[in-house]
């Protein structure tokens, strides 16, 4: 399909979008500060732009169009009501530095969300400012560092993560100036407790983990793990990526975690937007309270007010220009209000029911579960190693072929320790018929793998493009459009 630049014609523009102005407005500015030639942006009509981007949109898979069982990403329905609420003019038009007196409505919403997240996690306080999960992780580990430093405990240089952890965990630890030591996970998907005991020591600043783990199973030794790390003087970080499995049922604070982040774009149904924006609020227990990132909202006698560096002298400070992804926070609050308390429990009930059902049906259809002795949580792992060996088709081939059935592929090759794996997370918002269709598609593909494996290796066959050459993309770097010729 043409790019917007291919549609461009010199001298054309969307005139209704031009504010009235004249070049005289630039009078008085030094010549040297001005641009000599305008940037070569597209010159198109309003209709051309609208049609181009509408046509592009049709080339996307999205929850609104397809089942999207992408493990660890919690691709649930994004309620339009929440989108409407966050798009109310009073919210969209609020300037971030408006005085508190003119911001009580907005601040009341943030305060409500802070309180709600405190209750659902068991934490003592919440700051909403981190703008995505990885920034929440950064905030959490930076707080761990600030805590040790404030105590004069300067020898703790290491963060532990299970070897199945999300890549953001080690990357975050390094951004916070730590080295990373990985701890093995055993054959049942639990952390190897002996390996953990051998790994902790006076150098341990903390441990980062999810629960349920990235293996799609509940870490049964959570309390013992916390004990080992705490006894060594370290703190525990909860990566909230998998909270959907236990929402309303288990509070991370009760598992011994000192600090956590939540992915509101997962558990609280805010849209993923083709790669964001997200929101990664952090919650802390009493020990890390003095270090929370600012700003956050407090309620005083005469209304809500911001707490800033002046109120929280031990803070790790601000991590963005203003107060995080406010519009996403409002969507999450709207979703929570529509769920109510009992609705939170039902999220995990049906997220787990759907995953367990899908796992049972796939197993019955002949697929191999990576952890057959364990209960599925909100997600589970298939290993396609047997299919790969028998027919020479990889998990990636099966994933690409699934796209032809109008199903987004599950997460592939993660966690890395399970060969040829699919991490499958259906979420609670899918109906049974949709899950059944997925099983049928998988069964058909398994049959194709025997009969015509090449058909899988060259999939997809029905999308706007065939399998794309990633190697070429990296080798002949072309990162922007250039005029032909």
């Amino acid at each position: 399909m043409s790019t917007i630049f291919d549609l461009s014609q010199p001298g054309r523009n969307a005139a209704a979008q031009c504010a009235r102005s004249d070049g005289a407005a630039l009078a008085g500015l030094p010549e040297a500060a001005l641009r000599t030639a305008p940037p070569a942006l597209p010159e198109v009509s309003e209709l051309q732009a609208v049609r181009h981007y509408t046509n592009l949109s049709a080339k996307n898979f999205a929850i609104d169009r397809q089942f999207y069982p992408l493990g660890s990403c919690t691709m649930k329905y994004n309620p339009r009501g929440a989108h409407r609420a966050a798009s109310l003019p009073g919210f969209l038009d609020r300037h971030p530095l408006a005085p508190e007196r003119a911001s009580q409505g907005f601040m009341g919403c943030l305060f409500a969300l802070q309180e709600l997240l405190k209750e659902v996690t068991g934490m003592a306080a919440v700051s909403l400012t981190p703008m995505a999960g990885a920034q929440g992780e950064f905030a959490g580990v930076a707080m761990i560092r600030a805590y040790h430093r404030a105590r004069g405990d300067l020898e703790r240089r290491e963060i532990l993560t299970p070897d199945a952890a999300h890549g953001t965990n080690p990357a975050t630890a390094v951004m916070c100036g730590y080295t990373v030591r990985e701890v093995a996970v055993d054959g049942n998907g639990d952390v190897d407790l002996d390996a953990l005991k051998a790994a902790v020591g006076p150098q341990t600043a903390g441990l980062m983990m999810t629960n349920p783990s990235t293996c799609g199973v509940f870490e049964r030794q959570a309390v013992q793990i916390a004990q080992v790390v705490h006894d060594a003087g370290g703190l525990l970080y909860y990566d909230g990526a998998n909270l959907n499995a236990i929402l309303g049922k288990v509070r991370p604070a009760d598992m011994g975690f000192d600090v956590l982040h939540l992915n509101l774009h997962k558990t609280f149904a805010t849209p993923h937007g083709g790669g964001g924006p997200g929101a990664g609020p952090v919650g802390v227990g009493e020990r890390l309270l003095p270090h929370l990132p600012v700003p956050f909202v407090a309620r005083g006698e005469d209304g809500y007010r911001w707490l800033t560096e002046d109120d929280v002298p031990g803070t790790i400070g601000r991590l963005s220009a203003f107060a995080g992804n406010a519009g996403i926070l409002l969507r999450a609050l709207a979703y929570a209000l529509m769920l109510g308390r009992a609705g939170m429990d039902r999220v995990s009930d049906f997220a787990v029911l759907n995953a367990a059902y899908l796992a049972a049906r796939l197993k019955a259809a002949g697929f191999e579960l990576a952890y057959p002795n364990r209960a599925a949580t909100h997600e589970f792992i298939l290993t396609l190693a047997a299919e790969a060996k028998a027919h020479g088709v990889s998990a990636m081939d099966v994933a690409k072929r699934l796209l032809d059935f109008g199903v987004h592929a599950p997460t592939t090759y993660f966690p890395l320790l399970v060969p040829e794996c699919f991490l499958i997370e259906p979420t609670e918002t899918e109906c049974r018929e949709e899950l059944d269709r997925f099983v049928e598609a998988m069964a058909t593909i398994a049959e194709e793998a025997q009969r015509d494996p090449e058909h899988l290796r060259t999939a997809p066959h029905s999308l706007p493009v065939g399998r794309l050459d990633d190697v070429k993309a990296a080798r002949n770097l072309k990162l922007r459009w250039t005029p032909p010729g």
Partner: protein
Amino acid sequence: MPFIPHTPADEQAMLEQIGVDSIAALFAEIPAELRVDGPPPLVPGAGRDSWNEGALPPAASGEAMSEMAMLRWMGERAERDAGLACFAGAGCYDHHVPAAVWDIAGRGEFMTAYTPYQAEASQGTLQLVFEYQTMMCELTAMDASNASVYDGASGLAEAILMAVRKVARKTGPRRVLMAETLHPHYRDAARNIVANQGVEIETLPMAQGRCDLRRLPDDGAVAAVVLQQPNFFGLLEDADRLTDWAKGQGAAVIGVVNPLTLAVLKPPGQWGDAGADIACGDGQPLGAPMSSGGPSFGFICAKSAFTRQLPGRIIGQTEDASGRIGYSLTLQAREQHIRRGKATSNICTNQGLLVTAGAVHMALMGSKGLAAAACASRANTLRLVERLCAIEGVRPLFPGPFFHECALALPKPAGEVLDALLDHGILGGVSLARHFPALGDALLVCATEKRSAEEIDAYGQALAAVIAE
């Protein structure tokens, strides 16, 4: 059940397939002592007085609200803050956003897609971001753009880390000079984010609201210099001279820029003899509503020598087996999901939907539309400053040309003035008291193309009345 489609018959059949007799049995592996004992009050805090009493929605009892009830409850709060004429800028601006921008960005196909890992099923987002990267390279006169970072301030931190990795490598100086005239929140956020990686940040001092050209160090031990153009006070720096000086010190130059102004101002890639190395900033003026400061998107563009230092997603053009052009995530070996602890950044989710809006915005506006919005904003700010400075005791704080923001000296504390202006329906700007107490009673004002002549005049009348009180 809100957003859960299961009928009792579904539930029963599914449990039978699994081979358990209740949903509770699916949670049997969770140790009993970890489970919440009965539903605690949650939404929003029934039985506790910590939560906003007096303004509680029906859900106070923990019940779900219908969409209608939720919208009413949120609507009351949105309404409470609405209706001010906005004369505040300081990194977030009240520009017109064409109606088509969010009609398109709000389409489910864009809004409810994930990060485009499955390229063949994500060509819409991928091509759009490829087009966005091209537009940003054009605006900044740089060679490469990533697919966004969170916002301008956190993006600056990433830019600093890029520069330090490239310039200082393992043994060079990890010293970064940051202009005092940079947005103070950017300074704080960048410092907080790079704090634990051994980067030393020093301030490049200002004189009369601009970088002091007489106090530029020349010891050569600098990895990067950070400038903002227009700077926090809306003033124009001598970007050419500062760039030439910094390059002479062996430092990388990072330009923090407002993308709208680049329709008319010299792009960072052309500053001085060699150009800046990295341009970053906040994309909010390109199609994002103010929305309390987020979400917007941060952008980072760089000269080709720095491409492999870029954080986060980058889209590249490639083809399929039959030679059809397509787009995919590329240079992924920089990223955390491949490289883990050795990645260029921990960033994963970025601000994709705002980039979608930004690309549509730029396509609709074109360079002509962006220039018109920038010029109209400058014209309005000139008019505003003239109007306000006609009031006894109000004057520009600094000499020299400003773009579309201006710092004013007031005869009264800015906080008091701003508070009193609220009663006139005016958000009068941003007080400089907190970050620049030495500047006395000062206010940063901005009038975008959306402010009418009547609103500007009303501000003048209100300010005169407030100062006379």
